[in-house]
């Protein structure tokens, strides 16, 4: 199930703007990798290159290699749709489908792809995914109500349920807990720990404690100046990054000192 991601010499552009420069990293299977770094340093941008969502933005381009096990996902013969079926994503902003009920939102991966599943199996998937996302108790009595009628945090958990319902090999999560209360945050962290037994997980977070709690490895990104490309400063075991990082910049960021 879980797959390794190997990134080499990756450069990411928005038109002429060089957003992320020269990233090399390995994302281990069956583990959680956290991306930390200041706002605007390119975490989201880089994350989106890992499932070829980046190219959806008009004018955006990528150079370099991203290997998913032994397949280069940027190989011309690779279908981005197939890549995205393997690598799921939870976005920074909750985006449930407004035309669908809560139930259909969870099953969106199957429904939108015209996959047929039995009612029993569908019910199972919905309940399991919603329980995992700590949303089941809140919505079990109104599964047929529209997903857009939920609170912001509930919508975010619905999106997490939607992403896990299709059981991707890799799950990319862009600040999944930034809109959540501490209890739901803990539930999501539990979910992440549980999912990592089978999946590869990448999580972007601004919450240092969260990175320290859930991740096995941590990558620190930084940008020197606005207009300059963001860079991967270092990546390593979370323990090491948070206790004795190799780079001075990392230490400054983690201890809250800048400049």
């Amino acid at each position: 199930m879980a797959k390794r991601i190997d990134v080499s010499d990756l450069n990411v552009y928005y038109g002429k703007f060089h957003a992320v420069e020269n990233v090399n990293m390995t994302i281990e299977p069956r583990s959680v990798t956290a991306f930390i770094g200041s706002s605007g340093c390119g975490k989201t941008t880089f994350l989106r290159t890992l499932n070829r969502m980046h190219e959806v933005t008009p004018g955006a381009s990528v150079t370099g290699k991203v290997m998913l096990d032994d397949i280069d996902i940027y190989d011309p013969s690779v279908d981005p749709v197939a890549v995205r079926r393997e690598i799921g994503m939870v976005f920074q902003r909750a985006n449930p489908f407004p035309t669908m009920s809560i139930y259909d939102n969870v099953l969106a991966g199957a429904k939108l792809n015209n996959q047929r599943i039995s009612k029993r199996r569908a019910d199972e998937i919905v309940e399991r995914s919603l329980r995992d996302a700590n949303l089941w108790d809140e919505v079990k009595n109104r599964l047929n109500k529209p997903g857009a009628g939920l609170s912001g945090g509930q919508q975010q958990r619905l999106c997490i349920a939607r992403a896990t319902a299709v059981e991707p090999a890799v799950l990319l999560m862009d600040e999944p807990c930034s809109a959540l209360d501490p209890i739901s945050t803990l539930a999501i962290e539990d979910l992440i720990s549980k999912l990592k037994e089978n999946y590869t997980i990448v999580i972007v977070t601004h919450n240092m404690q969260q990175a320290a709690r859930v991740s096995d490895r941590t990558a620190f990104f930084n940008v020197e100046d606005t207009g300059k490309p963001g860079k991967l400063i270092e990546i390593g075991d979370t323990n090491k990054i948070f206790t004795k990082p190799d780079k001075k910049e990392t230490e400054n960021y983690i201890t809250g000192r800048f400049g």
Partner: protein
Amino acid sequence: MTTATENTATGAAGDGPPLRTASMHTRTLPGWFPPVLLVACAAVVSGALFALGSFHPASATVLTALVYLIAIVVASAVVENGRKATDRLVTGIVYCCFVLAMVPLVSLLTTVVVNGVRRFDLYFLSVSMNGVIPSMDAGGVYHAIVGTLVITGIATAISVPVGLLTAIYVVEYGRGRLKAAITFFVDVMTGIPSIVAGLFVVALWIMIFGPGQTNGLAGAISLSVLMIPVVVRSSEEMLRLVPADLREASYALGVPKWLTIVKVVLPTAVAGLTTGIMLALARVIGETAPLILTAGTSSTRINANPAEGQMMSLPVFIYQQVRAMGSSGDAGVFSEERAWAAALTLILVVMLLFLAARLVSRFFSPKLGR
């Protein structure tokens, strides 16, 4: 409130620190004051005009509005403060403008209804003009209703797919020169005078079928020439309103682009799309010039076959009856009555279509709330 004003006064006199909050209290005119003032103004103005013997509803209304505006500003300036007075003045002006904007609409509708009901009945709706000679107190619009429904129906059936698919191309796929060219030509097409569209189709028919062969279908084609650009423009706007987040959410689930468009983008935009299509339909359903050129003005019998001969439609029927209004004696009166009744019918048809579209979009559109 009075104490508050006194507070300010004492504060200003240097009795302790000036109370800034005190100035937040002002005396306000009671809520019943503006309407009562308005009624009073109306009474005074009407009375004065009657006394002068020159009462007319229009002049009375205008004078009442003016007197009221002056009175409310003065009253507000005296009792309240300058800012409130300005607020009252602008509020008054806004209401006046609103009434002014409603005048033509209401007057048009009442005129059509009042004149239309004289002949508007089941008989009028269910018979054609076949065999009706000008002096007969008979005849109806059934054939014109059939013609309008068939012609606009075909026009819609052509325009909606073409327009919607063009809009989808421009918004979702198009880039570079081709997209710019399409957008440009659609913009140009929106400005085509309707008679030119009619002329174009007549020329086309002459080229293909020879002269004098135009029919209902030609009318439908000329209407779709007018309708397509409107559908494209409005659908484009509606598709652009669908947040990119939703498309990305769908892509991230491994859904191909075309399925994303069909199952996410279109359903999300459906309410706006139907409204846009209805507006385009409403624009062409009253088109007269191209239909005079194509579907003809002389059909009096029921013809539901667009491929065969002339076809009457409601706007052309109105045109034809208005032209006959000058006939001597009863014939002119009958024509005038038929014209108004047909106008009423046309407005009702459009309203029914709008109602249907509202229901459709209510049924499909995103459901918010719990």
